[in-house]
């Protein structure tokens, strides 16, 4: 199994409080890897470190064999890593279609061009349309993203994340706050759009995790307590004690 993403002894402090205390993590290519842990364990912070939002205090991160430690977010994205946000982070005053189109523009190679007309970039427009359909928002295509329902905005958040065709995708609590049926839809969506890609996902919903993940890492107080297959994690006594408790029963 070749490696997509590696974290070596990653640490992060905010002021004097250390939030991430030496995380080592290896995610294989095309693996679906879930990160679970109690509130405040540092899961989102870990994503912020991997995606370049915050600088590391120490340690290193390797994406597809290349060191991306402390690279700019846009550089990391161009190397094939895209992320979603726990708190919906979209272009609220632009249409759904426009949101997706902006998200895939860089990967289409048009960079900062001011000599191409968007209307004539048929490859870009077709791909944007295809993604809008895949995330189930075809009927909302020309609506402003800001007026969508919560679940629709979460779907758009995923659409923006996958639009650029990144090989490694980080999703931060994609189903949080959704109803049962919405969650089921979201899981199906995540399954199809990450087909053949590497997925790292923070999630609280055990049903979602055990249904989607190939492997699970448990993060507690900024340290990885255990990593393994869903069955191994379920059977791990330390995990049961520290976190899962009755949930896995």
């Amino acid at each position, binding site marked *: 199994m070749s490696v997509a993403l590696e974290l070596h002894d990653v640490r992060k402090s905010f002021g004097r409080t250390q939030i991430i205390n030496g995380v080592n993590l290896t995610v294989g290519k095309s693996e679906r890897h879930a990160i679970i842990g109690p509130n405040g364990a540092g899961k989102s912070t870990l994503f912020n470190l991997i*995606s370049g939002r915050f600088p590391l205090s120490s340690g290193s991160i390797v994406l597809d064999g290349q060191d991306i430690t402390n690279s700019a977010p846009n550089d990391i994205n161009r190397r094939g890593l895209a992320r979603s946000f726990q708190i919906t*982070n979209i272009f609220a005053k*632009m249409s759904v279609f426009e949101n997706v*189109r*902006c998200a895939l523009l860089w990967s289409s190679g048009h960079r*900062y061009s001011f000599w191409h007309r968007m*209307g004539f970039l048929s490859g870009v427009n077709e791909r944007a349309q295809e993604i809008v359909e895949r995330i189930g928002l075809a009927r909302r295509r020309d609506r402003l993203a800001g007026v969508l329902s919560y679940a629709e905005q979460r779907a758009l958040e995923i659409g923006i994340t996958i639009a650029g065709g990144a090989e490694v995708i980080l999703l931060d609590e994609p189903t949080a706050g959704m109803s049962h049926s919405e969650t089921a839809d979201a899981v199906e969506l995540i399954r199809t759009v990450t087909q053949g890609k590497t997925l790292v996902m923070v999630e609280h919903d055990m049903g979602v995790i055990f249904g989607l993940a190939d492997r699970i890492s448990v993060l507690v107080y900024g340290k990885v307590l255990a990593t393994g297959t869903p069955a191994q994690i379920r059977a791990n006594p330390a995990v049961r004690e520290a976190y899962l408790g009755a949930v896995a029963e």
Partner: protein
Amino acid sequence: MKADTSALRMPLPAVPDTRFALGRQVATWGLVAAVMIVLPMLFTQGFSLSMLSQMGIAVIFALSYNMLLGQTGMLSFGHAVHFGLGSFVCAHALNRIGAGEFGLPVTLIPLVGGFAGLAFGIVFGYVTTKRSGTPFAMISLGIAEMVAASALMFPGFFGGEGGITTNRVLGDPVMGVSYGPQIEVYYLIAGWCLACMIAMFALTQTPLGRMANAVRDNAERVRFVGYNPTRVRYWMFCLASFFAGIAGGLATINYEIVTAETLGLMASGNVLVMAFVGGVGHFFGPVIGAVLVSFLQSALSTYTKAWLLYFGLFFVMMVLFAPGGIASLFAVHGAPLRHGLFRRLIPGYLLSGVCLLVMVLGFVALVEMLYHVEQGADMGTEFDLFGLHIDVTGAASWLAAGAVFIAGLVLFVLTLPVIRRAWTHVHGELQARDAA
């Protein structure tokens, strides 16, 4: 990271997506061109012609400003720097051409201004666009101050208090055009104005233009889809400076004199007002603003010395009650018009409109009377206003004006619910039809 525009509570909708509406665009620009050609035939006095020329320059300038504010969310207090520097460079270029040092048709002088604006944009933009939001606004202000100060420190280039004079008529007429008569200058400005409008509109439809909107909406997210928001801002800043420089070059040709005022803070504030009054959320908003503000400034100033006060009040009212500018006032009526519901709104508008007019008349009377009291020695104590004779020494005029103002104000406030009810009805109808 929030764009500073949010601080002003401006609604900033995206430029509407005009995919393959090429035919419609050609028709729109054809119409604009036709209007530009016909206008000087309708308004033939010299006064109108110079005002039209001034408007054409203002349109380019205001649109270029909106590339920063409306499209990228950068509130600049120093955009006139690029207009003014472009202007000065063009004045020197014209003088050099006149002295026979090099040759360039006057028609292309605005391009010199454009490249001068661009060059300074590359320098100043590198510093300013590293920041966004309030820091950007502050740095732009600092640079504007700095340039304005250097204008006084380097009289060789800026000509000191008197500025730089020049002559747009150079050598023999080319194909019968000498740019001596104002009408020829007007058509030169109109031609450049149309070209710049089309270019700036086309820019909104490019990858850079779209990412500028994305940076305005959510610069943080832009970083996670592969773009560097600083780069986007920098590119937009440079291009906006280019167009500002073109406008500056046209101003040089038009007035044949450039003073340090053209690059000062007043000028930067003025273009902000134009874009804002017109509406920064719509491409054509600044066009409306530039035309209206140019008109008001010229027209009001011929009627009253208190024009700046009226103008300032007008701006404050716009910011308070129509923060999306005039363009947004048009835009909100689009849906009612399409669905034939506009009729419902007319009675309320007429009613409140009349009351508003009464209020304004009373207000203007009061202001003018105050002005005459203050300046009594120069202006006398009696004057005519709206066909009425007013004597500021008597109580009757004061009472009448005050009564008119207060009556207008009260009636206006009382009639507002009529408009509100009509809108509630229209919204309900629209929603019902939307659901159907």
